[in-house]
């Protein structure tokens, strides 16, 4: 069916009739021609041209009449077709804008179909035929090489079916390189986006060179070479400035260096995806929004704009709402600490569980550690009668962290506990809030704060009534009183000193006071 030499083949006749009959009929006839049913295609074309009273230029009209006679159709096309009318150019208008979806469909064609071909996509803005379909009409233009032996009508049919399976019903026009296409295809090529092959001039008549060249491919659709693996050039760029974390040693020597070996993937791919991830509280910056995403990224090189995007996004002020008393979401949302209000990451407590920021503490709220202060006072250990007779001078003191406790009991009163050296605490962990002593509760007799804060004076005999556990606790308290005031680590039991040991950051629960030995 393919005869590229005579210029009167059914395929070339359909090329000349493009834009004169509706696209559905044109695609149907191309399918019929591809499968060898030229006579039926000519019947449909002739009947439509007669019904629509479509005037044809003299060469096209003569070609239709000759084809009907060759096919021995009953209809007398020469008598029923409208008279020939001269035509200058094509009345159709095309626009490349809005062809992105079609370009994606054409770009996903198999390499076998587009091997050695150049393809373009465009959209026709004007109706074709008397019963035109919806507009704009997607149009695919394919140029095959002169040495390509594949039948062009079959190629047009296959590409049309492939586009239809991709969800785009497009009209496919296949032209041969070196052959001047009809005015319809010329006008379409002038406003088309190339998809496959290198952009270049298409054969056109010498008197039609005033029109501008087709738009270049680089802006929208990168033109990968047919059947060629897209080469990704290594993107080498300077690392973005990193804000040093407080309390952490410098990690400049651990930053990834640009690899001189080309990567399979762009090195900035991961930061770009992270930056593109939406954040609900991101403050928009005028003029700093991401640029339009070009099509055909799969086969093309990433534009330079994308390489600059991570730095811009990193510079954007990010402020995430953090729940009171829970700095972990804020630290996770902004690990670089770009915002002054953000909680920085501690080296030993990256999730921020073991310590609380100062601004999260509400001073007006009731102190939930009042029970602990009561425990420390030792009132619970004194019988009511003894307390009523002579209250022991117990000093309220902030709690202490777990420390080694001597095994032997405390000596007779007055007891001035010797200071016990506390285990050293890493400097990274000691940014801890101090706990104010709880206010005295009304109705509970409590000793006034002692003038000597370094010891506890107990009445004779009161120590004998204490159990071993109570004695241990008293020893610990006295040792604490002998040391300068030490802030506590955490309000919750089980996270002090073990915040970073567990798999989830929670650590193992601390041993109760009774099991401290």
């Amino acid at each position, binding site marked *: 069916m393919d005869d590229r030499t005579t210029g009167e083949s059914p395929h070339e006749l359909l090329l000349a009739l493009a834009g004169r009959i509706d696209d559905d009929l044109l695609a149907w006839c191309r399918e019929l021609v591809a499968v060898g049913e030229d006579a039926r295609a000519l*019947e*449909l074309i002739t*009947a*439509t041209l007669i*019904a629509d009273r479509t005037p044809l230029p003299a060469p096209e009209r003569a070609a239709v009449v000759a084809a009907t006679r060759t096919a021995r159709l009953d209809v007398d096309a020469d008598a029923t077709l409208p008279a020939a009318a001269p035509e200058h150019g094509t009345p159709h208008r095309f626009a490349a804008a809005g062809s992105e979806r079609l370009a994606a469909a054409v770009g996903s064609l198999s390499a076998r179909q587009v091997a050695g071909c150049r393809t373009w996509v465009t959209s026709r803005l004007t109706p074709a035929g*008397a019963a035109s*379909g919806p507009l704009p009409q997607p149009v695919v233009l394919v140029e095959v090489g002169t040495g390509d032996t594949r039948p062009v009508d079959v190629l047009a049919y296959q590409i049309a079916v492939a586009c239809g399976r991709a969800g785009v019903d497009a009209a496919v026009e296949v032209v041969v390189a070196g052959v001047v296409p009809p005015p319809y295809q010329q006008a379409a090529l002038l406003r088309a986006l190339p998809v496959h092959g290198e952009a270049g001039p298409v054969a056109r008549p010498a008197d039609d060179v005033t029109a501008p060249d087709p738009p270049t491919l680089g802006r929208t659709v990168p033109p990968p070479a047919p059947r060629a693996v897209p080469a990704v050039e290594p993107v080498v760029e300077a690392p973005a400035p990193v804000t040093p974390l407080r309390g952490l040693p410098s990690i400049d020597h651990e930053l990834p260096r640009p690899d001189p070996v080309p990567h399979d993937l762009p090195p900035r791919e991961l930061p770009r995806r992270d930056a593109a991830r939406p954040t609900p509280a991101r403050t928009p910056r005028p003029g700093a929004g991401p640029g339009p995403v070009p099509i055909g990224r799969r086969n093309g090189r990433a534009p330079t704009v994308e390489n600059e995007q991570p730095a811009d996004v990193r510079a954007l002020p990010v402020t995430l709402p953090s729940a009171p008393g829970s700095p972990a979401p804020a630290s996770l949302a902004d690990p670089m600490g770009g915002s002054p209000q953000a909680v920085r990451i501690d080296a030993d407590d990256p999730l921020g569980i073991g310590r609380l920021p100062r601004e999260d503490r509400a001073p007006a709220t009731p102190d939930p550690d009042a029970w602990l202060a009561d425990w420390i006072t030792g009132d619970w250990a004194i019988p009511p009668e003894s307390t009523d007779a002579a209250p022991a001078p117990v000093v309220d003191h902030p709690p202490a962290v777990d420390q080694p406790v001597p095994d032997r009991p405390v000596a007779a009163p007055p007891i001035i506990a010797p200071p016990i050296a506390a285990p050293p605490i890493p400097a990274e962990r000691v940014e801890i809030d101090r706990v104010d002593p709880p206010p005295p509760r009304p109705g509970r007799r409590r000793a006034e704060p002692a003038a000597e804060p370094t010891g506890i004076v107990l009445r004779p005999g009161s120590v004998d009534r204490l159990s071993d556990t109570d004695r241990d606790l008293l020893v610990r308290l006295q040792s604490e009183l002998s040391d300068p005031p030490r802030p506590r680590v955490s309000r919750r039991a089980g996270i002090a000193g073990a915040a970073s040991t567990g798999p989830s950051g929670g650590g193992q629960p601390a041993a109760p006071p009774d099991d401290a030995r």
Partner: protein
Amino acid sequence: MTSRQAAHDLLVGLAGRLSDEMTWRLRDWLAAEAFGPLGEMLPRELLRQRVGLTDTERELLVRSSGEWGAARRLLEAVLPLESVPAAGAVFAAGPDGLDVAALSVLGVVRGHPGCVELRQAWRDGTQRVVLVHGGERPWALTGTLQRVLRAHGDRTPCVEVLPAHGEPAAYHQAAIIGSAPLWRSAVEAVAAGA
């Protein structure tokens, strides 16, 4: 009965039996008064798709295609049929509300003389079927509505302009039962009530 009316009645009766892709084109050629191509193509398509005709339908074919120059050999080759088979399609009213295509069809039908009622159904959930009762020059109205629907994206418009009175075929009966009314002429409603 004129040849145009005979061709229109025959093409209406072939709904659901001939392919939609070919039926709408034959109706479009009839609306465009392309009698020569229609007279030749109609018997050929009946033979290609092996669609049989009843005696009544054969008379309609002879009165249309036969008068328009179709070869007698082709007319005689059309397969005979005892009776019209039952419709195998399922029709449904579809979602409530009118889309742009239905509103465009309604605008044309309201202004066409003789139209009584407009209904719409969806065949097998995918194909819109427009049913018009009454209307002068039904073949012209059919062609106009088909082109309106094609402009709105219906590649194979199914427009059935039925006579205002009469017994519809099985295909159209099923379509009417499953359709939803879009419009009814007030004059016709008053006349029916009187």
